[in-house]
């Protein structure tokens, strides 16, 4: 192992840990909230089973507002909220709040788009059986869209990692921030390159894993 990495070993492990925490929480948020939001964006559309112009517009606007904020400003805007929720607005834990909110907005769009690819006939089959909305969602839509969900999540996770690099602003840390602070601002180019290599490996693994899983569960 290069000497430089040995020297900074503790910090590197810490920052990898921070990235995992930030991205992990974002993934959870994307799945637990982004998935339902995306589902409702789809279901409330014109012509769909829950058609509801009002709910659709509200959700659509909310997602758009979050997505239109310059990320840095969103982080700042959310400080009071973060403080309310976590008691502090700095540190890795605090960084997960804005990241999660971005994650939700980001993933819900990809979920919506995947659901739009589900053949209409399948939804009709579900309706004709008298399926409840819940059944339509879980037993039909999610089953047919699942490989799209996985690919979308893969893309999103990689974006989350990229977003997390900005979280140095509120002391979130993480590999990217480490690369920026030590590598870029202190001109330790070699260290920066190692960090980037770590990130590339991480991203490559995530992409590989995502692609494989999505192919495995795609029986179409």
């Amino acid at each position, binding site marked *: 192992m290069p000497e430089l990495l040995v020297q900074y070993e503790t910090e590197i492990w810490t920052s990898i840990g921070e990235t995992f925490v930030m991205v992990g929480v974002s993934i959870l948020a994307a799945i637990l909230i982004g998935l339902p939001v995306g589902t409702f964006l789809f279901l409330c559309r014109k012509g769909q089973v829950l058609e509801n112009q009002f709910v659709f517009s509200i959700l659509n606007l909310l997602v758009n507002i979050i997505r239109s904020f310059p990320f840095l400003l969103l982080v700042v805007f959310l400080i009071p909220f973060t*403080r309310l929720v976590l008691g502090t607005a*700095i540190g890795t834990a605090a960084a997960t709040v804005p990241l999660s909110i971005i994650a939700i907005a980001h993933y819900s769009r990809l979920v919506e788009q995947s659901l739009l690819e589900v053949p209409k006939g399948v939804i009709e089959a579900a309706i004709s059986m008298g399926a409840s909305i819940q059944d339509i969602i879980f037993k039909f839509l999610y089953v047919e869209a699942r490989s799209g969900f996985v690919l979308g999540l893969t893309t999103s996770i990689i974006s989350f990692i990229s977003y997390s690099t900005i979280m140095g602003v509120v002391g979130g840390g993480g590999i990217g921030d480490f690369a920026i602070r030590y590598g870029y601002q202190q001109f330790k180019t070699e260290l920066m390159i190692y960090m980037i290599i770590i990130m590339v490996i991480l991203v490559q693994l995530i992409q590989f894993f995502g692609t494989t899983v999505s192919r495995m569960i795609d029986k179409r």
Partner: protein
Amino acid sequence: GQEQEANKEGNTQENEQEVVTLKIATLIPPMTEILDLVKPKLAEESINLEIIVLGDNVQPNTALAAKEVDVNFFQHVPYMEEFNRNNDAELVPVVPIYFANYGTYSKEYNSMDELPEEAVIAIANDVSNIDRSLALLAQHDVIKLQEKTGPYYTKADIVENPKNYKFEEVDLLMLARMYDDADAVIMTPAYAAPLGLTPKSDALLTEGDENDFAITLVARKDNADNESIKKLAEAMTSPEVREFLGKNYNETAIPAF
């Protein structure tokens, strides 16, 4: 802005004397304001000052070293030297303009003594400012630092921290926002000003002007002697600038000329 535009146009078209364009990279007020102030004056001397506002404190040096700009104005000399060391660059100071009076601010406490045990102190997260923040505290005997091992003090250099202060490193841009969150914040007046805080009346500790940290106009070795840069330096150290700083940035940006 429009008047200046017209001025510039007029210069290029009508003046026989050749107009020199001088590109300067900078970051935030009062730096940008000082430049805006001198720009019309330089125009009269056939110097077109092109102000390029960047958003990061490495790029102005990178751009200067790469000859994309002719001068920059955002840093103190130690920071510039550190850049030179790491990038084989030959940046040189032209003239110091003002001291950004570094200070410690607290929303809740009125003096450093009131700060409780284990209080959280927010500091900037880049090395030169960590160094500067720690040095400020050491200057006032709040902590004790060991002999410098590298170019900068780091948290590892703290040998005595009697009240066990916790240092939270955040982005420069976040420092002011930490005023509500941390027990104390160490920052430059540029970041304190928008909160209505001045070093003179609000800071618990200040750096004063007995230090190396004056914000300096910086050029390259190969162009530092340029006539137009000299004129720029002259304009930036003029009485008008002094007056401007005194009026708008009293105790915040102390003229260094």
